[in-house]
């Protein structure tokens, strides 16, 4: 195809992915999306893992600048630590996009999976299934940016529906998260027998809650609503009698692809827009069962809006093989 500069010579183009978080399925899937789209473009990709060290992540941006890369994707991080480094990259003439971190820079487009919408859609489904007054348990750990944004949706929904009662709020990031959350959820279910809905807006939380619900023998009485999805989550949702009713997710691999494509547009002097939103999809247990979906690939084929988002796709853009 006719590729705009600099992609007429893609092997001369280097892009860097500077990550804040890397451990876990979501981040692994995101990375695979980035890799696939980069390969489709034929550019050289360098990955910097700061392993949840925000200061190091900022340094890594500087390092990428020193290496002379053409474009940088910033994946997660802390606004305060990152905004200066991002500004330096822009000053050095490097194109930058940021995924799920606000770097407070008009020149840097935001790729977002809209955590607020994730939470909101899941709760709307909960209200649809259970009516607008129920007693809920809520899993939340403050201080984790995406969870904080999903938390706002919970607050809003609670305010709009006074019938929703929050019986207990709990949560922990102790590793392995699902196991620790299961222990807590057991205690909560024991103490608050009137809970009928569990809102666990992170799939590790939901997994833990499901274990606790199963162990307490309450699978029929409780519905779990969550965010994010993975192959393992799909099988957990589809277990016979599973309490996990629905989850809302964007496909992390798609978000990865979109990140690279937006960056590529900028390199070709096109404008992807100040905000690139990858819309989330509602996935219900019923849908999974009806379509006999066993993994992420099958989910993609049965739910095209999940498999690829038509976001940042100019006509010249080569797409990964599907």
């Amino acid at each position, binding site marked *: 195809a006719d590729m705009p500069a600099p992609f007429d010579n893609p092997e001369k183009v280097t892009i860097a992915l500077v990550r804040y978080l890397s*451990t876990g399925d979501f981040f692994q899937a995101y990375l695979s999306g980035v890799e696939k789209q980069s390969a489709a473009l034929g550019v050289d990709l360098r990955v910097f893992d700061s392993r949840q060290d925000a200061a190091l992540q900022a340094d890594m941006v500087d390092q990428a600048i020193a290496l002379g890369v053409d474009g940088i994707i910033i994946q997660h991080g802390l606004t305060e630590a990152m905004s200066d480094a991002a500004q330096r990259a822009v000053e050095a003439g490097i194109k930058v996009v940021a995924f799920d971190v606000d770097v407070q820079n008009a020149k840097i487009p935001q790729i977002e999976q809209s955590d607020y919408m994730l939470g909101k859609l899941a709760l709307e489904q909960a209200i649809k299934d259970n009516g607008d007054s129920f007693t809920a348990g809520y899993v939340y750990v403050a201080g984790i940016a995406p969870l904080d944004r999903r938390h706002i949706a919970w607050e809003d929904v609670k305010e709009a529906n006074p019938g929703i009662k929050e019986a207990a709020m709990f949560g922990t990031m102790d590793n392995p998260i699902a196991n620790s959350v299961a222990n*807590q959820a057991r205690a909560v279910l*024991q*103490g608050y*027998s009137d809970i009928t809905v569990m809102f666990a807006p992170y799939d590790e939380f939901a997994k833990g809650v499901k274990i606790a619900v199963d162990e307490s023998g309450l699978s029929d009485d409780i519905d779990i609503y969550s965010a994010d999805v993975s192959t393992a989550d799909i099988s957990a949702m589809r277990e016979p009698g599973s309490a996990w009713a629905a989850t809302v997710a964007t496909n992390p691999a798609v978000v990865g692809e979109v990140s690279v494509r937006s960056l590529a547009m900028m390199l070709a002097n096109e404008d992807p827009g100040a905000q690139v939103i990858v819309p989330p999809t509602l996935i219900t247990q019923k849908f999974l069962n009806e379509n006999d979906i066993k993994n992420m*690939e099958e989910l993609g084929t049965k739910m095209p809006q999940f498999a690829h988002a038509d976001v940042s796709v100019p006509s010249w853009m080569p797409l990964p093989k599907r």
Partner: protein
Amino acid sequence: MDNDKIINFAIKYGFLILLVGLVIFFSVASRGFASPRSAVFILQSVSITGILALGVTCTLVVDGFDLSIGAVATSSLMLSAYSMVILEQSAFVAVVLCLAMGAFVGLINGLLIVKFKVPDLLATLGMMFLLIGLQRIPTQGNSIATGMSLTDGTTAQGVFSPAFLWIGRHRFDLVLERLLPVPVLIFIAIAVGIWIFLALTRHGRLMYAIGSNERAAALVGTPVKKYKVIAYMISGVMASVGGILLAARLGRGDIASGNNLLLDSVAAALIGYAVLGAARPNAFGTAIGALFVGILLQGMTMLNAPYYTQDFVKGAVLVVALVFTFYLDARSSSGGKT
């Protein structure tokens, strides 16, 4: 003297009294805390850290330390998932593989320490990093679940066998229907086993001797190196049992660091020093220590205390209980100052 008697009583039973006090407090403050189900929940929630803690107790007895247990547990979690889901092996093979892996890691730790004279903290820290990396290499950092896509383009067809899940999930009837989960039974069995081994057999006695004066133990003809290696192997096997139970409970091979498993089980083993005024590592104390942490967390969760207050209270109670034990112990045994 009367005073001495009180102090001795306090040292010996202070911690257990605290435990009973906590139970009473939670039973009053939170409906649903005092019930057989709740008791079983607590046991279940501490069974995995408890088993790890019992393993680390064995290394503490020979004056060692095993920082790698958390990583061994998560490695065993990944390995069991890998062997069932990707290699499509049976539950039996998975369990055997994990136990063998745990024993092997323990063997390597032990050899590093006794043969190559690497200090224990160092050897097991290195092993910890090594395992954290190693367990992620086969799946490139992905969790393992049925249906996951493999590098060769196919999807993983294996499943967690029901027999394997049974280990983590089955519950026996006892008084109430479906009351007693398998992990709790395993925990109790291991606690009793390790307690008998350490407190009642000559092997345990020799291990305590090694921990107290290694040279002296060697000079009476104790095979010191062998016992030390065995202690690390027990620790490795216990950690892998913990990992198996974790896998059976989660039903998938989750990527996890195991750092919290390490810290919680070390905490349980160390709290064990305070039980019955032992002031040294002991299996009964470790089991009680694990239980103590479990009761505290269960009770506080039921009172809707946020997770960070749980850490705070855990730390505070730990410090207070231990100051109590060790301070009184030091005072009563030295008569005067020092």
